[in-house]
């Protein structure tokens, strides 16, 4: 148990973040983290050791999180493939440069709000790929393994997630820049 407790300490923060990215709700994320660690503890003897423990744990947590989303949506099936067949963002439309630097336009918490709202608009199957690859820093191979997806599927989702986020953030930042220039005129 002491060795497992070490693993809990090591990964609870990251698993919580991934769960939050999927369920978008703190209470559900807490439940997901608890259930994911419990399941991994119960199934520890099934852990093959040919992948990293963390990747295996993330896979369990992602499944738990999707189940939680399904419960919240009164039993409607939620899968990692939901709403991913969208063309949105595949070709950038709004090609305004981000000037002035958006980080100079907003305070820390305002920026965090914008980032949360923006990522919430993405389908869960995009959010989680972006969170694992770009925020958590997992490799494409690890992400594919954790999500049970092929490597080309991870690459394609990551590209579309990045482009959709970019497109949506551009809209926010343009409004912010307009607001700032209006204020400057006054």
């Amino acid at each position: 148990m002491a060795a497992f407790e070490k693993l809990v300490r090591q990964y609870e923060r990251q698993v919580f973040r991934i769960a939050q990215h999927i369920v978008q709700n703190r209470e559900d994320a807490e439940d997901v983290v608890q259930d994911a660690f419990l399941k991994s503890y119960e199934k520890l003897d099934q852990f093959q050791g040919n992948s990293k423990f963390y990747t295996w744990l993330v896979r369990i947590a992602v499944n738990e999180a999707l189940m939680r989303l399904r419960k919240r949506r009164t039993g409607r099936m939620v899968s990692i493939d939901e709403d991913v067949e969208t063309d949105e963002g595949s070709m950038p439309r709004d090609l305004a440069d981000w000037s002035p630097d958006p980080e100079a336009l907003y305070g820390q918490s305002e920026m965090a709000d914008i980032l949360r709202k923006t990522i919430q608009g993405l389908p869960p199957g995009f959010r989680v790929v972006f969170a694992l690859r770009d925020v958590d820093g997992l490799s494409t191979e690890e992400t594919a393994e954790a999500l049970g997806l092929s490597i080309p599927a991870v690459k394609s989702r990551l590209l579309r997630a990045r482009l959709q986020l970019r497109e949506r953030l551009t809209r926010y930042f343009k409004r912010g820049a307009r607001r700032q220039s209006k204020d400057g005129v006054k």
Partner: protein
Amino acid sequence: MTCTEFLQQLDEMLDPAIAGPLRAELQEHLHCCEHCEIALNTTRKTIEIYRKHELYELPEDLQERLHVAILEKCRGCGK
């Protein structure tokens, strides 16, 4: 190279570890396409901002509560 082809390979430009002929081809397109340059820079910045801002921080008190709850559940599972 067209803009669509460039965007399909955007990840190659975002990963600094990737080098070789494809990257050179992409660089060449960038030199003469302002739109793709903006798309690349703003996508890069998107990733950077998300990495920098901790959106779902786990406050210490909540982490402790969660930690205790996890271990209690595991101890109670009879394994």
